[in-house]
């Protein structure tokens, strides 16, 4: 890596940069753009569910095919093109070199290649909405035979394009993951020992390891499914000697660890935010690290709880029930450690802190409702209802939306050298969290009432078309629209603050970690001279010290 700081053209600076910060921003902005598409799709199908058969403003009539396309791609986009790029790639790329005090990733060109492949995957996905037959309509889990045969999913081109996009996206994150792990291991500032690494980096890196271990089988499955779709081979077709359940194993062997792949970075962001705004040392650093490792390991042994109804030996169902319930222990322990960090702290309710606290509260609901689904007995009743849907939105929305907002509000001064507006931030916070609960609490009740997922209109189901159930659907849809419209406040605040926000100093939050030792925004190369680390990252309010924080790079 050469360190000549010559003037770069706009083209080479923003499109073909190998600088980790630029790549992080590329991931962040691509992720935000995809989030807008995913949110718009949710608006489309929620309108159809609340007001069946109306012309949806801005979208038109939602036909059954369009409904399936919207649902499928909403899920795929939000997980693969929003949660993954923003939580892992954007925050990982931005934070890892800055927080360990080095100038860039170990493999900068590999990093650039990773974003380029990711961008291609996003373009392939978006292009699939415009081919004849429309985008893929076989649900984001892509179960065969629905996904394998065009005569069932009615999207002969959309299906292989979707699968190609997902596979490309995986390649991008595999390259990114190699980079993250190698950089964390090999490029730490002198003096930064294992226990001095900020917890968010541990979590991003452990999440990357989990991702890399789980992605292989799904890529194998994707190759097989692609053969089934294009050449009609029949790996998943029982008439030809294949096995449809095999796909579910390969998919969920990836799919369930994936939940923890996105959960861990979110947990990490929250850990950074609550220590700074509680002015207190993180409670049980090592406990949190060990529970992270335990969560990552256990996440490989829970996948078949998605198949309790699809067909699984009851003895195996017992095993997977136990592992599934077990995994709630390390995650709960993490939450307790965070609450213990808050206990007795001098809490400042700034916008990032509000989002971090909301994460803990909302994720708790998601976690507790998961216990009913992890137990095979109750899952047989709840399976494929809106209870499942509400449960995983209570996990994924805190992860991919609420914690991301906490992270953006927290690191914004570092990223752009300016502050976001605090009042607008608080308006945005309440405008996001309250409607979020009003969307998904009704869906729990609808699920308990037996409302099945993936049904385009409930008018043909007399039991489910009752007015009091329809009222709940309307409440959820209206809340969604309210929540989406409050994001305008965020977008305005975000872009206005980039150019016109209050100038931020080097360390506006009085935080300890190394990224705050760099200028805001950090220049190419990050630090004027690479920092030395003298202490762990969470030394807040140390007795006998005048300042209530103690940066990692400060000698005494």
């Amino acid at each position: 890596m050469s360190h000549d700081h010559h003037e770069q053209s706009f083209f080479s600076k923003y499109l073909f940069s190998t600088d980790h910060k630029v790549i992080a921003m590329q991931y962040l902005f691509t992720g935000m753009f995809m989030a807008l598409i995913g949110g718009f799709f949710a608006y489309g199908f929620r309108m159809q569910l609340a007001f069946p058969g109306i012309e949806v403003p801005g979208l038109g009539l939602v036909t059954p095919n369009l409904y399936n396309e919207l649902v499928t791609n909403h899920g795929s986009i939000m997980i693969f093109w929003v949660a993954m790029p923003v939580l892992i790639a954007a925050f990982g790329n931005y934070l890892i070199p800055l927080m360990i005090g080095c100038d860039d990733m170990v493999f900068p060109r590999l990093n650039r290649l990773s974003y380029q492949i990711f961008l291609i995957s996003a373009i392939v996905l978006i292009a699939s909405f415009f081919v004849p037959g429309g985008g893929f309509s076989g649900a984001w889990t892509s179960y065969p035979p629905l996904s394998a045969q065009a005569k069932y999913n009615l999207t002969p081109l959309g299906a292989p394009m979707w699968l190609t996009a997902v596979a490309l996206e995986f390649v991008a994150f595999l390259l990114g993951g190699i980079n993250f792990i190698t950089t964390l291991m090999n490029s730490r500032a002198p003096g930064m020992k294992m226990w001095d690494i900020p917890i968010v980096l541990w979590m991003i890196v452990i999440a990357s390891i989990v991702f890399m271990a789980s992605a292989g089988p799904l890529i194998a499955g994707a190759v097989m499914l692609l053969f089934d779709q294009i050449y009609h081979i029949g790996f998943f077709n029982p008439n030809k000697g294949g096995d449809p359940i095999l796909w579910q194993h390969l998919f969920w062997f990836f799919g369930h660890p994936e939940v923890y792949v996105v959960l861990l970075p979110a947990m990490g962001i929250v850990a950074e935010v609550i220590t700074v705004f509680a002015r207190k040392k993180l409670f049980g650093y090592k406990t949190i690290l060990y529970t992270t490792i335990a969560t990552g390991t256990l996440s490989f042994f829970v996948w078949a709880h998605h198949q309790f109804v699809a067909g699984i030996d009851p003895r195996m169902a017992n095993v997977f029930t136990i592992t599934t319930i077990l995994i709630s222990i390390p995650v709960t322990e993490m939450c307790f450690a965070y609450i213990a960090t808050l206990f007795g702290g001098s809490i400042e309710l700034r916008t990032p802190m509000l989002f971090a606290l909301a994460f803990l509260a909302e994720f708790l609901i998601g976690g507790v409702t998961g216990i009913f689904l992890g137990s095979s007995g109750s899952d047989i009743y709840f399976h494929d209802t809106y209870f499942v849907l509400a449960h995983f939105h209570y996990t994924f929305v805190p992860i991919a939306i609420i914690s991301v907002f906490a992270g953006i509000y927290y690191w914004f001064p570092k990223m752009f050298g300016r502050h976001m507006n605090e009042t607008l931030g608080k308006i945005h916070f309440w405008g996001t969290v309250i409607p979020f609960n009003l969307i998904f609490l009704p869906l729990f009740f609808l699920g308990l009432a037996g409302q099945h997922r993936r049904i385009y209109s409930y008018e043909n189901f007399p039991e489910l078309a009752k007015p009091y159930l329809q009222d709940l659907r309307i409440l959820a849809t209206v809340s969604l629209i309210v929540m989406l419209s409050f994001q305008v406040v965020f977008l305005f605040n975000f872009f206005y603050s980039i150019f016109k926000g209050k100038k931020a100093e080097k360390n506006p939050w009085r935080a300890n970690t190394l990224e705050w030792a760099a200028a805001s925004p950090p220049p190419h190369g990050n630090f004027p001279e690479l920092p030395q680390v003298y202490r762990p990252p969470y030394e807040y309010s140390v007795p006998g010290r005048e300042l209530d924080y103690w940066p990692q790079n400060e000698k005494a």
Partner: protein
Amino acid sequence: MSGHVMASGAVQKKKIPSPILGMLLFVFTEIMFFSGLISAYFVIRSRSNFWVPPEGVRLPVLSTAFNTFALFLSGVLLYYAYRLFDMKGKREKALFYMFISFLLGSFFVGFQGFEWVRLFAYGMTLKSNIFSSVFYLLIGSHAAHALSGALAILFVWKGFRRKYQKDVMIALMMFWFMVVGIWPVLYGLLYF
């Protein structure tokens, strides 16, 4: 590999050099990929009643055994070249054996391609039955890796003619040994 992937910002004393650690992680994901394929093999085979090649086709077990030997020899020679690079004055010899390793690796891929052409001629295609589908999927995935591995040896060999880099050699060996090591498993599962 070679000059394209360079480490930056080296300030910490490294336990494992970056190219090796990076390759270790990559090989790990590849092993998971093949584990996925192999478990798919077991699942499909366990529920299949006719687990045989299409009628009238016999798999070339013996000539493939010979081919297996060629691949093994390629792996051994690459390791031999690695040892030679460390000795004084053996550079030319090391480069020679490394090139032979590449030739044997390409021979493996080429010979397998030739066998596939004959199998096609006998009427065993991707769609003949579930056995042949699984056969081509697993062997084909391996062949793709063997091909890229052989090309990687050639590419790195070209770089080494200018300058030898031990870390790159170790990373290359890790990938190639994965290709060599997985082959007997697939050979045993599918040819017998």
